[in-house]
């Protein structure tokens, strides 16, 4: 008995010694900034590479990485190569906890970039704050990222869902005046924030329904919306559920005008999920704040396409790829702005200072008191299987500010494709 215990204790101590020594020499070197050396900056992210949100979103991080590889091939930023560690969390908040700890405590990343998902990322905000990790460009439009006092190191990327809801609502109010407007949203901050924005503009909706990603069936919800006689249905859904909603509605001969949040509207992703039923998307109205992947004439698309071919193995070029590369571009801009002596505080200050000019159609809102990402969006309509922009871009805030058209000349990318300091 005693022997067993002694053996066990000895084994555990050895194990501990082994663990600590194997981790000890993976230190940061140089300055005392985690993840930063003179030749490298290590950053990480959590992404749904598997699970209910993998459709579409799984191609974001390879695109981001491809752009970093492109920058690295051009000499990196301030002589540093960017190493991007991507961890799969399966869109499961519990896994996010695990992988983000791994990134921060074990891999010692400098910053977290573009962690994806409202439910997933919400759970790691406190952990990142405690460890003072810059949490940049969260891939979601929840208003939770915009709490400068509570989470000083967290910044969003997407227009927040309330901003988007207000702009989609303005379209509905102008173009579908007097029609019965209904809503289907994810049962979390995504759906709730979007509904707040929408109702602020169109008034109370005639019917509202929610879904959860763990239950891939929206039959009851679409039935209820049909029963309520909805003519316009606003969706705050992830791509898989956009497809599911459109398909389910068609099955029960329910043909409202669908108006879809940007995060669930990539035509390539939704079209693939619908398969042979892809033509059902025709006329669908959505929004975007980045150039569309099908807009061959746009210089940003030309740049990103080139990077996609050279560094992303020529992956299917959809709006998710454009999104991933736009995030990477913004991060490289932030690194440039933070200067040669890279610190965690330095990059947070650089992001707060803002002034970034990139592929976005509207300005980024970053300031000392605002940590939300893009401040508006432009409407798109699917015509002939392709999304096209119509009208002008709009900006607004998440409070009761007006929805105003935004007119500014678009910038073109630098000739070598890498933002300068």
């Amino acid at each position, binding site marked *: *008995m005693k022997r*067993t215990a002694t053996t*066990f204790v000895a084994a555990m101590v050895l194990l501990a010694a082994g663990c600590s020594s194997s981790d000890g020499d993976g230190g940061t070197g140089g300055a005392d900034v985690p993840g930063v050396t003179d030749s490298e900056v290590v950053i990480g992210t959590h992404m749904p*590479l598997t699970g209910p949100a993998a459709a579409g979103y799984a191609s974001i991080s390879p695109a981001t990485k491809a752009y970093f590889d492109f920058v690295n091939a051009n000499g990196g930023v301030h002589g540093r190569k960017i190493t991007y560690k991507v961890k799969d969390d399966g869109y499961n908040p519990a896994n996010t906890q695990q992988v983000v700890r*791994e990134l921060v405590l074990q891999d010692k990343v400098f910053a977290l970039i573009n962690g994806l998902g409202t*439910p997933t990322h919400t759970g790691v905000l406190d952990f990142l704050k405690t460890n003072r990790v810059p949490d940049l460009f969260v891939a979601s439009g929840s208003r939770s990222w915009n709490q400068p006092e509570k989470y000083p190191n967290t910044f969003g990327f997407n227009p927040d869902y309330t901003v988007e809801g207000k702009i989609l609502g303005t379209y509905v109010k102008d173009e579908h005046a007097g029609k019965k407007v209904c809503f289907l949203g994810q049962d979390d901050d995504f759906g709730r924030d979007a509904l707040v924005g929408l109702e602020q503009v169109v008034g109370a909706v005639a019917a509202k329904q*929610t879904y959860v990603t763990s239950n891939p069936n929206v039959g009851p919800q679409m039935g209820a919306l049909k029963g309520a006689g909805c003519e316009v249905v606003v969706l705050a859904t992830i791509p898989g559920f956009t497809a599911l909603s459109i398909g389910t509605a068609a099955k029960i001969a329910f043909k409202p005008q669908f108006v879809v949040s940007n995060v669930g509207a990539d035509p390539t992703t939704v079209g693939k999920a619908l398969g042979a039923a892809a033509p059902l998307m025709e006329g669908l109205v959505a929004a975007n704040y980045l150039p569309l992947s099908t807009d061959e004439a746009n210089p940003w698309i030309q740049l990103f396409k080139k990077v996609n071919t050279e560094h992303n193995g020529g992956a299917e070029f959809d709006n998710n790829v454009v999104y991933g590369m736009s995030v990477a571009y913004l991060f490289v801009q932030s690194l440039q702005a933070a200067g040669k002596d890279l610190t965690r505080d330095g990059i947070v200050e650089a992001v707060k200072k803002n002034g970034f000019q990139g592929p976005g159609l509207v300005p980024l809102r970053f300031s000392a008191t605002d940590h939300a990402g893009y401040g508006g969006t432009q409407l798109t309509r699917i015509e002939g299987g392709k999304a096209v922009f119509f009208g002008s871009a709009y900006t607004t805030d998440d409070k009761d500010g007006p929805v105003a058209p935004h007119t500014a000349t678009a910038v073109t990318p630098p000739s070598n494709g890498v933002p300068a300091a």
Partner: protein
Amino acid sequence: MTDMKTKVGTDPVPASVSQKTRSGRRLAPVLIVVAGAILILILSYTLPPFRNYQLATVGAYLCVTAGLTVLTGLNGQLSLGHGALMATGAYAFTLAQNKWLSMPVSFVTAIVVTTLAGAVIGLAAARLRGPYLAGLTLAVAIVVPSVTSTFDGTFNSDQGLSVMLDPPPGTIPMERWQVWVCWAGALLTVLTLALLVRGRFGRQLRAVRDDETAAKLAGINIARTQVLAFVVSAVGAGLSGALFAVLAQSVSPGAFPLTLSLFLVMAIVIGGLGSLFGALWGAVLLVALPTFAQSIAEQTGSHRLEGNLALVVFGVVLIVVMLAAPGGIASTGNTLIRRFRRTR
């Protein structure tokens, strides 16, 4: 410990054990737990933060595997629903914590609520045998996400709830604090269980498992024993769930999927059914194997593998252990020692 390995059923306690060693054995669990506590304390100071976090996770898992191995190994009741009991504990803890912001109160709430839940399920379970019991508990495991989305006002659906936690006292690093909290819970659970199963209650558990008719003839209340066993193990699961809420600073149904319940059963079988040391092995494997699987998946470069490889690894380990050591990992050490003693 000899006592515990006998419930594998292969080697009964030798009749010649003297009264003196018996009382010595009664002291053993306390000594082991104290030794364990010292070891954990040392480890918490020497390990790097991420390893500390993993160590804390092992502690949290140990609470549930220890309870489950007593239920399944000693009392013969198979539960596929312990993940749901963990969820019960985690949500109870979180709701209490966010209301009163006091960890002791929240832990007590979690334990009280899971005791009730365990009693209800246990009452139903005591009337069921074998596959029917598995079916009932399986249903409990499956119902968690639906409950959280039906009552989304309280449980906030898939997104779950954040847990408000006070920072660790003084300048203790977060991860070390987590190790202390989790292992305090784990060692208390193990000590309680070890003392429980050693006495009259343990004998009743085994008697009911081995032959209900014989146990009844011996004057044991079968249903009462079974319900009690279920409640005891439910409390372990609830405490474990609460500890996970502390670790993750959030609870969501995704943290307690059906696969977790299945993994728990696999872990105690691999570790050694009915043995508390086996439960420890199971808890270690629950942390180590997914990490191992993930690092392999990352090396292959296929992201699709990452989410799924852990299942394969667990399955393979289960098969290998069952072929090589049907009594589980915990039994291998004992067998070796016995062989060693015999040759000496």
